[in-house]
């Protein structure tokens, strides 16, 4: 479904950690930086808060890609929250592969509060990547009965 | 069966240098050859005192004195005297003026006029056997001091005796001991100053060589009096024989329980260690000696505090000369009053002098205080050899001064010598005759003290250097009147402001020679002449044409030997010296067999 007539517009869910990536996004905004609007941001206190269930739930609700963004290693406001996120995402990517979902649809990025440019670049690039992958069609639930 | 005869062969350093041991060996072999070994015993003794007559021997019990023996005389001597009982005239001492030999030792004026206290055992005992020392009342004084007297009584005895330090300053020994007794600080030390750095002085050496136990006993008594725990003998390493005999004596004393713990079961602990001097004259000074013993450089320190309060290792220390310690046992044995009878009103007892220089009877002389110079020089010393005229005597070594002929009748004691500008000093007595140049003597002694100065304080270091420089210029003929005044001024200030004894006494030779022999100085400066012809640069050399031709037949030896080729002449003709070329080296005088060269 293309809303602005430019073909498939991927829907991306972004879990941004409050201290780094969320501020980075804010900085990008404040600095009037251009970036793809496809990213739907959900603020969490730390990337460690992102439960794999949320990611699966996002895909199940029709997201074409999920971005989890946290602080650079060592910069985490809670010292090691981002490390836990890294562990979960690595295992989850392996499971997504078994579920037949391209693991590139799930992306983990480190974006500090100062990297407004980087945030803009990541979200734009991710959007183009998903546009190439096309929509994620999962078996509709009502298929059986 | 005890021996009927004892041959006391002198083995002091002087005689040993003249090969006296060879004489002794010859005697021993000869006696053995004659089978007399258990009748006659050969004993090697310490220095007998008459060094000029060495190698010498005294035959006891009859006291016959033989001198200048050589091994080849021995067979004849043994046969004549020991077998046939006829003493050999040829080997006896012949006084210069009377030509008749004097067989008995005690008839010889050299010995008869002396009064032996410090040298009481010289020539009578073998220093390396303690038993002989004990046989002559050795350690009796110690026994008496330890068992019958309290330290206070010992001190009292020494005070009564009026004994004063024989090191040179003449500080009352009793007072010094009392200072150390009263000073706080444990343990206390007693030191025997055997440095004897003065050139020409060897009385300490012969005391230690011939009678080491007298020093040890003296130190023991002194230690008992002041409550000292340790003793140190500081002895010159250049006296190897003395060091060796001292070590033997200490060992023997320890074996007999006279040193170490609980001496003679009286609960008194005391021991003596030996510290060998490395040959610095300045280490004769008390504080320099102490720092040398402590292993630090031998450099005096400013006083006060005196050694009595802050001596060796910072503890109260009593330092006395070898002779002083040696005098203590007789004082204890015979009582202070006995000692006080000898000598003058302020200077009690006797003093050992080493009589050297232009004197017939060179050797050690122990005479009562108050004796006059004349008696020492002529009665004991046998006058000036070679018919020369007596000119002056230098007492106290480089720290002392020169006493002219006019004061020959000066009674000798601490005060009189000081008044004369000299000082008692260690006891060196150098006789000088007319052939001695007093300026050169002053230069010689100053060269010695300048070289031995430790260099710590400016007046002594720079002053001696400067005085030597002036004196050298005077003896080279370049001296000026200003030099003379400057010399006197510098000498006075150095004497007054120097830090230690060396500096304060170094100018004495200069000051006394200038006081009594100012004319010689003026001769050197004004007339550019050295009256005694010692300062070569001021001499002029001339050949007497008559003697050269008649006796020498113009042999030309002087012409060939002259290094500057300043002598001209043909064979059988009178030779003459060209004064302009002559460098005044004096070789011509030495080589001419006919004494044709006249020095003016």
């Amino acid at each position: 479904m293309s809303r602005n007539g430019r073909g498939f517009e991927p829907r991306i869910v972004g879990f941004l950690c409050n201290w780094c990536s969320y501020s980075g996004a804010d900085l990008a905004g404040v600095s009037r930086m251009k970036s793809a609007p496809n990213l739907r941001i959900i603020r969490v206190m730390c990337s460690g808060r992102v439960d794999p269930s949320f990611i699966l739930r996002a895909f199940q609700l029709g997201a074409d890609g999920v971005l989890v963004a946290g602080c650079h290693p060592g910069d985490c406001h809670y010292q090691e929250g981002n490390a836990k996120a890294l562990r979960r995402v690595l295992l989850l990517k392996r499971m997504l592969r078994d579920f037949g979902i391209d693991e590139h649809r799930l992306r983990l990025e480190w974006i500090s509060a100062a990297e407004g440019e980087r945030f803009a670049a990541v979200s734009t690039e991710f959007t183009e990547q998903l546009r190439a992958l096309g929509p994620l069609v999962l078996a509709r639930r009502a298929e059986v009965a | 069966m005890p021996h009927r005869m004892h041959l006391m062969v002198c083995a002091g350093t002087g005689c040993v240098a003249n090969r006296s041991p060879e004489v002794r060996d010859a005697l021993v072999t000869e006696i053995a050859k004659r089978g007399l070994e258990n009748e006659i015993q050969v004993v090697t003794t310490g220095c007998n005192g008459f060094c000029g007559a060495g190698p010498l021997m005294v035959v006891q019990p009859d006291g016959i004195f033989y001198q200048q023996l050589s091994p080849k005389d021995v067979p004849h001597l043994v046969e004549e005297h020991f077998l046939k009982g006829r003493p050999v005239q040829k080997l006896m001492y012949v006084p210069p003026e009377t030509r008749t030999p004097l067989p008995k030792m005690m008839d010889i004026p050299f010995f008869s006029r002396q009064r032996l206290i410090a040298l009481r055992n010289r020539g009578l005992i073998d220093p390396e056997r303690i038993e002989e020392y004990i046989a002559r009342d050795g350690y009796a004084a110690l026994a008496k001091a330890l068992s019958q007297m309290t330290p206070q009584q010992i001190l009292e005895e020494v005070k009564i005796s009026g004994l004063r330090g024989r090191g040179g300053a003449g500080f009352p020994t009793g007072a010094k001991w009392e200072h150390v007794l009263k000073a706080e600080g444990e343990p206390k030390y007693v030191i025997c100053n055997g440095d004897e750095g003065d050139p020409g002085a060897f009385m300490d050496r012969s005391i230690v060589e011939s009678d080491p136990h007298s020093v040890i006993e003296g130190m023991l008594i002194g230690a008992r009096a002041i409550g000292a725990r340790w003793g140190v003998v500081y002895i010159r390493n250049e006296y190897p024989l003395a060091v060796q005999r001292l070590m033997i004596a200490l060992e023997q004393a320890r074996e007999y329980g006279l040193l170490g713990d609980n001496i003679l079961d009286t609960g008194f602990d005391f021991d003596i260690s030996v510290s060998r001097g490395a040959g610095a004259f300045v280490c004769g000074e008390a504080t320099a000696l102490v720092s040398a013993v402590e292993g630090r450089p031998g450099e005096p320190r400013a006083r006060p505090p005196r050694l009595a309060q802050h001596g060796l290792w910072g503890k109260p220390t009593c330092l006395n000369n070898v002779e002083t310690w040696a005098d203590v046992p007789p004082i204890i044995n015979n009582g202070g009053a006995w000692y006080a009878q000898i000598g003058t009103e302020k200077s009690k007892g006797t003093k050992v002098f080493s009589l050297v220089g232009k004197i017939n009877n060179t050797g050690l002389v122990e005479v009562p205080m108050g004796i006059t110079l004349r008696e020492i020089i002529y009665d004991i010393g046998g006058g000036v050899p070679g018919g020369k005229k007596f000119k002056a005597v230098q007492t106290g070594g480089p720290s002392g001064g020169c006493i002219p002929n006019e004061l020959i009748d000066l009674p000798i004691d601490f005060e009189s010598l000081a008044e004369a500008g000299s000082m008692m000093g260690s006891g060196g007595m150098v006789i000088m005759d007319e052939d001695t140049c007093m300026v050169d003597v002053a230069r010689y002694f100053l060269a010695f003290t300048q070289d031995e100065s430790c260099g710590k304080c400016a007046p002594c270091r720079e002053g001696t250097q400067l005085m030597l420089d002036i004196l050298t210029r005077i003896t080279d003929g370049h001296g000026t009147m200003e030099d003379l005044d400057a010399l006197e001024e510098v000498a006075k200030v150095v004497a007054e402001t120097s830090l230690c004894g060396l500096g304060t006494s170094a100018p004495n030779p200069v000051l006394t020679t200038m006081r009594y022999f100012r004319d010689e100085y003026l001769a050197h400066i004004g007339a550019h002449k050295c009256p005694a012809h010692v300062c070569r640069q001021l001499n002029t050399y001339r050949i007497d044409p008559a003697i050269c031709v008649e006796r020498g037949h113009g042999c030309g030896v002087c012409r060939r030997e002259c290094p500057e080729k300043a002598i001209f002449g043909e064979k059988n003709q009178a030779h003459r010296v060209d004064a302009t070329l002559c460098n005044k080296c004096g070789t011509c005088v030495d080589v001419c067999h006919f004494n044709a060269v006249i020095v003016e």
Partner: protein
Amino acid sequence: MKPKVAFYWCASCGGCEEAVVDLDEKILDVANAVDIVFWPVALDFKEHDVEAMPDGSILASFINGAIRNSDQLKIAKLLRAKSQVVVAFGVCAQLGGIPGLANMSDAKGIFAEVYRDGVAPVRLHRENGHSLSLPEFFDTVVALDRVIDVDYYVPGCPPTPKIIGDALGALLGSNLPPKGTVLAPDQALCEQCPRKDTRPEKLLLKELKRVHQVVADQQTCLLAQGLACLGPATRAGCEAMCIRGNMPCTGCFGPTSRVRDFGAKALSAIASVIDSNDEGEITRILEALPDPVGTFYRYSLPSSLLGRRRME
């Protein structure tokens, strides 16, 4: 009049049926208390017997096994109509169970795998006047509550006799628990685990190990020894039968009531305790979990958020 109960098994291994028999002598009490009207594995009642009953005449029907084909769907619907209470009996009915793992493929994939190059089954086969039909083989296996309204669930693979007893007690008891309750304690298995007190102060694993690679120590917590024991994510009730047999829990009692997707939660827990912050090292450790879906969704794939594998 004794209350009528019914038992039925859909895509099931038959374990749950035996579980009922496992009640041993207690089966007699059950038999006395109730009138079993339909139990194909044990009693010879036929489908048409049930169809003949008036609706709601069966007090409770215990259905185990997942819905795999149209036949099972039909009977499930039938029993729902005839029963007042339907109990999803066993994890297959509750979450899809082991059969649910078929969702990693579809009908075509499975037939290709099973019948390889042989004859594949045909829905309708006519042979000289007679016809033989097979039920439709669905692509996706679903749990019972996806097709009919389920009142209660009895977890387990199979449910233990104690759980079954308690369930029956609860059902026959006066006050029925709220509809949709899972009839088992609502805490994780660790609560009942005998090795509960041996857990380390800081549970961090440098190594994960496969069950066949090591002989686990009998006393200490299996997860602490590096085995992927899913006890912390699994509902208690089985009194840690597997752990008493020195084998790590595989999650057959399903998640606790607060967890929507068992696999995601189990994955999150196991990933979180990996003791490394370095991507390379984490990947190396994760090599010990070659089949994440098989490990975390062993019994609950059909009821998971994604439900099945996405086919090209």
